[in-house]
């Protein structure tokens, strides 16, 4: 597949995550996908970890919305800049030390690199998320000086 097709897969995959369409996710993500995102070792292996992470996001932020703000690629890799907004009206973000849902709105970004197989499926991902911004917005961490 060419780079335009791989970019198309990333867009379609985000739509599937938004719709919680996990048959679609399992069609576009290789079962044994390797995930290098910090915290991925806390998730189930392979594509089921991607499903679990997405469900976790909806559990914390039931109104979760993800927008792709930038996307490009070269060869078998696609770079996507994502922006997530939502309100923590669901489960408390326990890993941040919170015991109650905060009701607060968050708006944070991440950059994801995906590597695609010849059939376009995602076989490997690397991502970095702006976790500190989310923790400050949730009130789980003090704002750094100057913010």
């Amino acid at each position: 597949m060419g780079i335009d097709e791989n970019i198309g897969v990333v867009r379609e995959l985000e739509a599937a995550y938004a719709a919680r369409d996990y048959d679609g996710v399992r069609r576009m993500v290789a079962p044994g996908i390797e995930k290098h995102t910090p915290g991925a070792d806390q998730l189930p292996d392979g594509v089921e970890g991607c499903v679990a992470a997405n469900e976790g996001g909806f559990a914390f932020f039931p109104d979760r919305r993800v927008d792709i703000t930038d996307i490009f690629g070269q060869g078998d890799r696609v770079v996507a800049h994502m922006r997530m907004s939502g309100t923590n009206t669901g489960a408390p973000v326990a890993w941040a030390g919170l015991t109650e849902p905060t009701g607060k709105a968050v708006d944070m970004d991440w950059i994801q690199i995906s590597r695609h197989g010849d059939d376009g499926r995602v076989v490997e991902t690397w991502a970095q998320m702006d976790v500190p911004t989310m923790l400050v917005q949730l009130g789980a961490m003090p704002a750094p000086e100057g913010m």
Partner: protein
Amino acid sequence: MATPDENAATTRELIQRVLNDGDISFAEKILAEDYVEGSPMPGGTVDKAGAIAMFTMMREQTPDMTIDIEDVIASGDKVAVRSTLRATDVNGFMPGMPPTGKPFSMGAIDVFTFDEAGMNSEHYGVYDIAGAMAQLGLMPGP
């Protein structure tokens, strides 16, 4: 029009000379006058002067810092870099927090945009700051 390969080479040179070698004058030369920083440090400005101040501060906070580039993806006017920064927290890596003297590593993904003359006109990046803080004992791990 600078090609993606030329922009990728400029990006590698920017990281090597400015951040690894501490040659801030190369940033003065290669950042466009209308540069826009999409990920300013807390309290920092989004213009060229703010970016230069950020590079200078990083070199002061962690003088032994090295960035190892693990992947470069270039297309059109954009260049993405996946890297790991390794350093010792000598002078206070986290603004407002005391220096710990400990070594740490931090994963990063950066995106640089270049103008037609091949000057770096824009940048944004996301860093594993939470992971670095956990290594320095400044924040509990998830």
